[in-house]
């Protein structure tokens, strides 16, 4: 077995064990499992949120976009900073409501605020349908990165299966706390990998950043301004996409739910202040993509830019390190995604819809069982239908963004009513579905999800205003 393989599997297994160990002294009840007992201080919250945000596709996607599309990739650097700015104003209030009424999940909030179990079930189902393709993407990304990093000696299916089992076990035993602990390993490895490669490759090939950028500006200046190499991604597309993704960011059920795990509203607010610093490594990832444009032009699959450049530049054991970092970077978000999806199904679909009398212990047992079910479904998709869910993934992202009016009006506008929010949500979802499935994204130069969101807001506001109290 080569050094690279030892590193990859050593790290994957070690991470799984740390995740299991994290839950050793906890008496597992629903509160501990889903929101870590609401005891996370600023460090665990930071790690957890970073764990959700930095996925395998930050690695491969940001460098791949910088490589194949150029400037439109800058939106990845921007939307996070704006999402944290929004969270500064929204999440503390949400946390206080969650604490006061014992909420664990996003549908819990909708049920509480709009006093409607139907709306809760609807939000839960949209959430689960959005999460599954995202989860599948993590598993596929993991397989892809390990396969390339091991130079094809490990089949991606094997890597996916091993990580799948370990992730299931540590989510089952340790819940959210397990994910936060493994996130420590993941962040350390990922930041180290990004720094070594991001600082390294431009220097190795060009001597300095400014030299590399100078050559790029000389050779292909259009690559560095919108729309870069992607003609349909002009500045209006970029603007609407930034707005949509920053508004939708905290609407992902798992990101939304993580806010409830903080110890206090102050922790959330302070976290919002420091989070934008976490965006800076993305700049380094762009630099890798830009260096790759000059050094290894003409790759068919842009997602390979990062790995191919590393392969060309560094010794093979280092590829093992990158593979390990990439694998853990997929495991953590996968754990968090499956944890929230299973809670949505058991608590907000099963309990709210069919068995209102179920106690917490029953919901908890069902959630743990659902972890295995949802992971298995995603695994089957990842192994047997790897290419068929791209549209569903975009649909999922644009779908969760449609929760935004319901959440924000719910917090800040007393009059916003159940029927208005539900009508807005459905209008937005249908609009997004029609545009994307008919191949009209972007539409009129704007992101389709953004158009759905505008319609959603208009419908929600109109119905609320028309309906007399």
């Amino acid at each position, binding site marked *: 077995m080569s050094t690279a393989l030892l590193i990859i599997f050593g790290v994957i297994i070690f991470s799984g064990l740390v995740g299991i160990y994290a839950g050793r002294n906890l008496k597992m009840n629903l509160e501990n499992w889903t929101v870590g007992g609401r005891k996370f201080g600023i460090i665990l919250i930071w790690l957890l949120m970073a764990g959700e945000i930095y996925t395998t596709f930050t690695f491969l996607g940001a460098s791949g976009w910088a490589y194949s599309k150029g400037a439109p990739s800058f939106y990845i*650097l921007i939307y996070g*900073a704006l999402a944290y700015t929004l969270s*500064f*104003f929204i999440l503390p209030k949400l946390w206080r409501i969650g604490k006061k009424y014992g909420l664990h999940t996003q549908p819990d909030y909708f049920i509480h605020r709009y006093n409607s179990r139907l709306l809760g079930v609807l939000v839960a189902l949209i959430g689960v349908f959005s999460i599954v393709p995202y989860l599948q993407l993590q598993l596929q990304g993991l397989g892809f990165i390990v396969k390339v990093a091991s130079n094809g000696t490990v089949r991606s299916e094997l890597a996916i299966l091993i990580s799948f089992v370990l992730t299931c076990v540590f989510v089952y035993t340790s819940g959210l706390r397990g994910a936060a602990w493994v996130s420590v390993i993941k962040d350390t490895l990922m930041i180290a990998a990004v720094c070594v490669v991001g600082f390294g490759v431009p220097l190795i090939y060009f001597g300095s950043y400014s030299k590399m*950028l100078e050559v790029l500006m000389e050779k292909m200046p259009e690559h*560095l*301004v919108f729309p870069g190499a992607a003609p349909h991604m002009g500045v209006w597309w970029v603007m609407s996409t930034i707005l949509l993704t920053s508004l939708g960011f905290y609407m992902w059920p798992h990101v939304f739910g993580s806010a409830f795990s903080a110890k206090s509203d102050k922790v959330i607010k302070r976290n919002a*202040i*420091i989070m934008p610093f976490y965006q800076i490594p993305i700049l380094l990832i762009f630099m890798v993509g830009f260096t790759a444009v000059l050094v290894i032009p003409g790759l068919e699959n842009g997602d390979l830019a990062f790995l191919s450049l590393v392969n060309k530049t560094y010794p093979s054991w280092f590829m093992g390190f990158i593979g390990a970092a990439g694998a853990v970077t997929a495991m953590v978000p996968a754990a968090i995604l499956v944890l929230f999806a299973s809670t949505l199904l058991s608590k907000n679909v099963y309990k709210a819809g069919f068995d209102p009398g179920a106690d917490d212990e029953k919901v908890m047992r069902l959630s743990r069982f659902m972890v295995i079910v949802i992971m298995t479904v995603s695994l089957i998709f990842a192994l047997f239908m790897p290419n068929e869910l791209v549209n569903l993934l975009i649909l999922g992202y644009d779908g969760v963004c449609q929760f935004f009016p319901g959440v924000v009006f719910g917090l800040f506008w007393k009059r916003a009513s159940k029927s208005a929010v539900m009508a807005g949500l459905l209008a937005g979802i249908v609009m997004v579905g029609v545009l994307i499935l008919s191949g009209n994204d972007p539409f009129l130069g704007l992101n389709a999800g953004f158009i759905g969101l505008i319609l959603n807001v208009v419908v929600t506001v109109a119905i609320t205003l028309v309906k007399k109290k």
Partner: protein
Amino acid sequence: MKKGTKYALMLGAIPFITLVFALPLVNRIKPVVFGLPFILFWILSWVILTPLILFIAYTLERKFNNPEDGDED
């Protein structure tokens, strides 16, 4: 609306103005600053300034809003 909240919201609007609505105006390469094309320099600067802006917003909220209300932080 409380004074501190108002200030905080005004500050919170700055990243949205600079990082979304100003983009068509700064979509160019020249002048090159610190080796970065202007658009990238602009984006990076405001991403780095955002935590500072939020920190000021946080301080103002604490200063002007009554902590007893529980709505301030």
